[in-house]
């Protein structure tokens, strides 16, 4: 199990100009690490649909590297997206999966068959070009450059420590520094795309 914050630190060194989307409770660390927030986008929503939106972004911005930090709870709710992504083979798409084996945002209840699912194998079977599995930070850090330079779609499953939230929603800290629409508008401005 790896600390999510360490993963983002390792990724940041190889981010270059990539457009980044993060989700889940562990994703909040990215706000403290990113050095190019105008290239961070937030589709933060329920039922695993952010992954499909990031997939659409990758198809629409073929000349940009698009990186998505997914969670296993979200992926299980939209598992067909693996086939959708593999079917279009976006070369510019890197799909990380931060797997804490639970629904951290609802109190840490386990996801179905939490310990035994091999998500990287699922992605490989769906047709991703390359897949990786990590439980060790050093191995991940060593491989990060290769991951970012590999032709997509790339899938990287990483076991992480859960960061469970138990407070009622109304009492939780709002980790978002910008609204969804603000991140969309900032990215469009950065890329000179008319809305």
């Amino acid at each position, binding site marked *: 199990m790896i600390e999510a914050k360490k993963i983002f630190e390792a990724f940041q060194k190889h981010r270059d100009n990539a457009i980044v989307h993060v989700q889940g409770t562990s994703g909040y660390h990215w706000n403290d690490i990113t050095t190019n927030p105008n290239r961070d986008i937030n589709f933060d929503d329920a*039922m695993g649909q952010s992954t499909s939106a990031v997939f659409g972004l990758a*198809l629409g911005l073929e000349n940009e590297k698009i990186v998505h930090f997914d969670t296993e709870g979200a992926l299980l709710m939209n598992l067909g997206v693996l086939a959708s992504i593999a079917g279009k083979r976006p070369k510019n798409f890197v799909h990380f999966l931060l797997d804490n084996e639970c629904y951290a945002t609802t109190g840490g209840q386990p996801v179905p068959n939490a310990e035994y699912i091999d998500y990287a194998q699922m992605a490989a079977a769906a047709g991703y070009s390359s897949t990786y599995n990590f439980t060790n930070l050093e191995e991940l850090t060593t491989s990060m450059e290769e991951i970012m330079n590999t032709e997509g779609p790339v899938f990287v499953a990483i076991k992480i420590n859960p960061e469970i939230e138990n407070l009622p929603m109304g009492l939780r800290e709002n980790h978002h520094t910008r609204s969804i629409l603000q991140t969309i508008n900032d990215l469009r401005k950065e890329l000179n795309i008319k809305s």
Partner: protein
Amino acid sequence: MNEQPAILRPETLLEEFKKIGVTHIITIPDSETNYLYELMEEQDWLDVIPVSREGESMSVALGLNVAGKIPVVLIQNTGMLESGDSIRGMALDTGFPLLMVVGYRGWTRKGKTPDSAATYTEPFLNAFRINYYLVEQNDDGPRISEAYEESVATKKPVVVLIGDEYHGWNR
């Protein structure tokens, strides 16, 4: 008496898509749209994106819209009913123009249908406060462009219901 005087040809939809400037069609094919699917695949100006579940289609469309593209969702009403939360979170909440072309399974001009997919289609759209237009023959084609223009003006999804009761889109 002929209850449906003219058919809806797949070419009519394609012509409307071209007029609008559509760049991507996000779809799950069904038996009634097979010929349209093949026709779309032949067009070099159009990228067809098959997805695994209809709820994905609005989300992929959002990503494409952010990228400056003009996506259209092409699904059946059964899949639309299943996509309620995606329509809410990824289309309505984000406020972008989205044309959704929805096959109206079970639709009948007689007004009475044995198919509950049709029974709940319009109440569903009304519950989400999404405007819709019925297209059932070639002459109705311009409604597709009108629906798109409305979606641009309102920055909301607008639905075109394809009520081709007898012919399907298979010619």
